[in-house]
């Protein structure tokens, strides 16, 4: 399943809603397989940045490109070949009688044949362990599953870039883990994953780089682990280190791991060295 690999690049991008500036001179690049968290207060420009990637908005200055495609002049339905997106309250876009039909909407709209559509739908549903609910009516499922369905719909586009806005809002821990696995799997296959989120525990598990927006400017671009263990850099964003990172700092674990598995392994190693607790 050769997803076309493409880099996501912002070059000096500025955008304003009327006279109100939303993004000011933002530049960064995400190589295929990179997984970034987009952090910042509400109103810092996160949603605007994600909408610029999908082509719903086009930059006033500078350029946004997905591989060799510049988004300027391309409508969202054309960029959908390379960019999969899930915005907030996305479950309100569902309308098919079964989960399978809804996930198939994207591939069909892109003009793929029945066999290719079926393959993509099965793969996307399997990636989020939704195959058992494929025949269910989306509105008969709990809201959390409808949210997963919209993510499956984006995965079914088999895009080169995935942009997600708060994908874990309203999900419980096992479902958050499913989303983490699916995104890690896509990134391993070369997809660029960009996630705007407040859920730092989720970010710690699956994302590796942190882009910080503050009042429309790119205030920070650093490895996520460094960001997550520094309450000094998170506090101005109204954020605090997730529990795993906080534990790692509190117990002064070497290397300051942030992923739960890594924190547990480091803890076990250090405990063994110290003798029984």
């Amino acid at each position: 399943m050769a997803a076309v690999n493409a880099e996501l690049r912002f070059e000096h991008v500025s955008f304003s809603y009327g006279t109100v500036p939303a993004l000011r001179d933002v530049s960064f690049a995400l190589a295929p397989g990179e997984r970034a968290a987009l952090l910042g207060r509400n109103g810092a420009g996160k949603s605007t940045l994600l909408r610029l990637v999908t082509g719903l908005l086009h930059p006033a200055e500078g350029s946004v490109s997905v591989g060799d495609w510049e988004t300027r002049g391309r409508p969202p339905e054309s960029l959908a070949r390379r960019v999969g997106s899930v915005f907030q309250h996305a479950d309100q876009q569902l309308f098919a009688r079964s989960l399978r039909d809804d996930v198939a909407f994207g591939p069909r709209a892109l003009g793929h044949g029945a066999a290719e559509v079926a393959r993509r739908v099965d793969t996307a549903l399997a990636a989020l362990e939704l195959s058992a609910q494929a025949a269910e009516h989306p509105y008969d499922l709990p809201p959390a599953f409808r949210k997963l369905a919209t993510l499956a719909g984006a995965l079914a586009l088999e895009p080169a870039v995935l942009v997600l806005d708060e994908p874990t809002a309203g999900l419980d821990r096992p479902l958050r883990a499913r989303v983490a696995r699916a995104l890690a799997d896509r990134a391993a296959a070369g997809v660029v994953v960009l996630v705007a989120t407040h859920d730092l525990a989720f970010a710690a598990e699956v994302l590796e780089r942190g882009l910080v927006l503050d009042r429309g400017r790119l205030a920070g671009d650093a490895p996520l682990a460094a960001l997550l263990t520094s309450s000094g850099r998170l506090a101005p964003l109204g954020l605090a280190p997730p529990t795993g990172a906080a534990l790692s700092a509190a117990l002064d674990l070497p290397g300051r791991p942030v992923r739960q598995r890594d924190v547990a392994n480091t803890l076990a190693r250090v405990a063994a060295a110290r003798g029984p607790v």
Partner: protein
Amino acid sequence: MSVRLLVLIPAAAAMSLALSAAVDAVALPLFLDTTGTVLATALAGPGAGIATGVLTSAVNTLRNPTFWPFVVVQVIVALYAWLAARAGLFRSLRTAVPAGLGLGVLAAATSTPISYVVFGCTTTGGIALTTALGRALGLPPLGACFFGSFVADFGDKAVTFALVTSVLHALPRRTAARFPWALRAVGAA
């Protein structure tokens, strides 16, 4: 009147007016502002339908000051949709679209005298131009006015009925079972 049905009416009315965003996206000359009226009737009967229609007109008037005389058309649409629902015409597009066309004729026939008396057949630019075309074709004033309203209305009502049909069929079992008339409207009662 249960709170649930009471909530349906303003929701259906507001939804009708919000559909203009979808119609604008595909640039089709449709109003769809009776969708809520037809849907409320098909789900909860004529009472809910008429209330939705009147409410749609009242709220719509604030955006288009010239639309309130057509509250009569909304009531006619609700009554017509009641008959269609009782006959289960929403069971498939094959029965719903012709019913919608029938409503298009009836709606045009109802709005023509209003348009003629109140607006002199200039309700909207479109209607005025088609009326002028009618006059050019030698139709008498009222006939030309009917021709103007008909061209605007018949497509809109047919699409409205088709849309309500696909909504009723897309409804999940649990939601459909909760509305008294939904199953009868699709001929499944």
